[in-house]
């Protein structure tokens, strides 16, 4: 079928379903499910060209989302919540990783479950469990027009999670490698490598952000500022992809720098916001289409244990973390539910595991399978948390 026709039909079908379901479920979920049905697992309707675009598109969409999240990092917001939310997300990320790792290890060593390399498997699964999905979370927040302190906490936390996730993941892979292949643990490597990655991401984003601020001084009109912002987000995403930085962090810093220093930033963020919906729709449909449900029966008990432990880790980790940083009660009660979605970042980690430890390839399958579950349960959890915390204004 003609590729343009294919895309047109895809957009319309997805939109129609999302439209009729939107009172009950977040549209992201509809998009993912439509993708699942039309994708390679079932109908195989989607043109293969789009499926191949997956990795570029996901980098790009993550970058756009992070850029828009950067808008929440206006100085007066950060002053109030910045340190607290960083501390909170560091705590809950680490907590989830520890709960999942120790829980799995307990199951392995007590003889309930059997695997070849219990320690490394538990560590690596723990590390991927920390990752969340800013994209899906952000979409639900946007669609439900959620606002308030809970939303601010949530958006900052999901974004910082990426940094925390990278550190934990790098840390765990170094230990796992030492356990599997021998050799000492080079502490410098454990600490320096992730910090480098984060540092470069921030630098890259800040540099592009300053450039954007500078250019926008000379450009006032709508079309120009939109084109230049798109260019900057593309560059942030592309450079991160090329040099192995985090596209999320660099685009977020780009957005934050621009939000704080750019005089026209409020308007520009609105333009970008108008531009992105079709892109996001396509992205979620394709990520749904790429989910391989034939993996589901293979999850087994390890997968189930991993999913349950991760949910516990997130919910209790956020609860404890919020108590420690003295966040408002609604944050303490509901933040964990909002942070259940998992997607691209976790899949990325899973792919890395496959490359680094070929004999532990089944971990990749487990993570990918569980991602299907969290992609479906996650948005519902987020919506539930937003409703309960009173972040959604009643319909006018």
């Amino acid at each position: 079928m003609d590729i343009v026709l294919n895309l047109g039909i895809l957009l319309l079908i997805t939109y129609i379903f999302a439209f009729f379901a939107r009172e009950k479920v977040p549209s992201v979920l509809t998009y993912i499910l439509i993708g699942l049905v039309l994708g390679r697992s079932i109908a195989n309707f989607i043109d293969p060209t789009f499926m191949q675009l997956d990795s570029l598109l996901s980098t790009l969409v993550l970058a756009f989302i992070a850029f828009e999240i950067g808008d929440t990092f206006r100085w007066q917001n950060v002053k109030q919540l910045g340190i607290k939310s960083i501390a909170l997300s560091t705590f809950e990320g680490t907590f989830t990783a520890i709960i999942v790792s120790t829980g799995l290890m307990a199951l392995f060593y007590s003889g309930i479950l059997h695997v070849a390399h219990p320690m490394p498997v538990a560590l690596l699964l723990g590390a991927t469990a920390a990752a969340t999905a800013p994209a899906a979370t952000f979409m639900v927040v946007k669609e439900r027009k959620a606002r308030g302190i809970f939303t601010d906490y949530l958006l900052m936390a999901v974004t910082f999670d990426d940094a925390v996730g990278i550190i934990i993941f790098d840390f765990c892979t170094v230990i796992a490698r030492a356990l599997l292949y021998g050799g000492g643990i080079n502490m410098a490597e454990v600490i320096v490598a992730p910090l480098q990655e984060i540092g470069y991401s921030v630098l890259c984003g800040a540099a592009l952000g300053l450039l954007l601020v500078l250019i926008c001084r000379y450009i006032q009109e709508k079309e120009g500022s939109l084109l230049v912002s798109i260019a900057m987000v593309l560059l942030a995403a592309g450079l991160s992809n090329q040099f192995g930085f985090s596209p999320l962090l660099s685009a977020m810093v780009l957005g934050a720098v621009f939000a704080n220093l750019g005089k026209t930033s409020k308007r520009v963020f609105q333009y970008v916001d108008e531009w992105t919906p079709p892109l996001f729709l396509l992205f979620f449909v394709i990520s749904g289409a790429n989910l391989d449900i034939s993996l589901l029966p293979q999850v087994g008990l390890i997968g189930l244990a991993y999913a349950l432990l991760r949910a516990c880790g997130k919910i209790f980790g956020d609860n404890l973390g919020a108590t420690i940083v003295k966040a408002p009660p609604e944050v303490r009660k509901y933040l964990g539910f909002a942070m259940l979605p998992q997607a691209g970042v976790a899949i990325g980690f899973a792919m890395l595991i496959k490359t680094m430890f070929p004999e532990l390839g089944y971990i990749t399958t487990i993570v990918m399978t569980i991602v299907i579950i969290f992609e479906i349960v996650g948005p519902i959890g987020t919506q539930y948390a937003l409703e309960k915390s009173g972040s959604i204004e009643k319909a006018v």
Partner: protein
Amino acid sequence: MNPLISLGLVFLIAYIASHLFGRFIPSDLVYVLVGVILGFLGIIPESMMESEYAIALLTMGMIAFLLSPFLGGGNLKDLGAKMITISVIESLFTFFVVFLGFCAYFNITGSIDVPSALLLGSLSSLTSPAVALMQFREYGTKGPLTKYSTGMLVFDEVSGLIIFIIVMSVSRVMLGASVSPLRNVALAPIIEILAPITIGTLCGLALSWFFERANDHNKDSVIITTLGFILLTAGIAKALTISVLLTTLIMGIVVVNRSQYDAAAHLDVFMGPAFLIFFVIAGANLDLEVIPEAWPIIIIYVALRAFGKIFGTKAGAMIVGAPEVVGKLAGYTMLAQGGTDIGLAFMVSVAIPQMSSMLTIVLGAAAIFEIIAPFTTRMAILRSGEDTIEP
């Protein structure tokens, strides 16, 4: 290089260049030149060059849809017949000028080649609307010249296509191909017009129904459904090999007339990026090396075609009694080439092996027109005084 980086650079460089030079050179030409340079440097990713077709289709579809307000309601009734008449007269006039000119030229050079002259003539009657339409938008033009040119640019594709289809069948017969041409000659024009109207109307009704259903007019819904329908309509038109432009235009007209809702306003945000990419890729795909080989024919073609367009429009405008400004200036907005004509030339050179030079000639001419047309269009806009915005 990572394709995202290249794409980012394309946006940044093209926009900054157009911002810096936009005062002196029309920005679509800046984009084309940036495309030529970046294509030469190999900065434009391969995958983007290949997706030219999809981008062109989408851009064409959006252009036609955004045009529809011009043709909404009374405008269409008042001007429609006149526009079509001018466009038919002007296309036929250009066809005959180029055809007879080349007959004379081939006669002088001693290689009598009627089929080539016929095909060159039919290709010359086609116009690429993007350049003029973008400039109308850029200058925010309003007035009779804008209305007439817009309508004519769109109908031109249809009249040009019909001429081409007839000529193609005739020249095939002349070259001894064993196709029964009569049926095609008789039916093709009817299908060329009826099919777009039918499909465009159906899609337009469906989209306006959508707008009524989604009565909260959520911005995201409007954007997604409109884009979806443009892609759908353009895709169907392409699959049936009927005019994409006319089909989407008719869809837009139906929507404008049936619903009060201004969807075009929301779509505006997509036009900037789409135009930029479209023209940069067009520039990157221009093969400048082909020009030296065939330059005498190219130069004659360009001169004859320009003459045909400008004076054909003048004659047409006089005959139907259009405002003076239309006769005087509209021809200058219709010079661009480099869309359907290249596709058709490509088709000819594949279908009729003797005509393989056709693509070279049309590509060369398109390159020249692509450079001339932005200037002549701008001249026409400024002379007519219909511009409202200082770009």
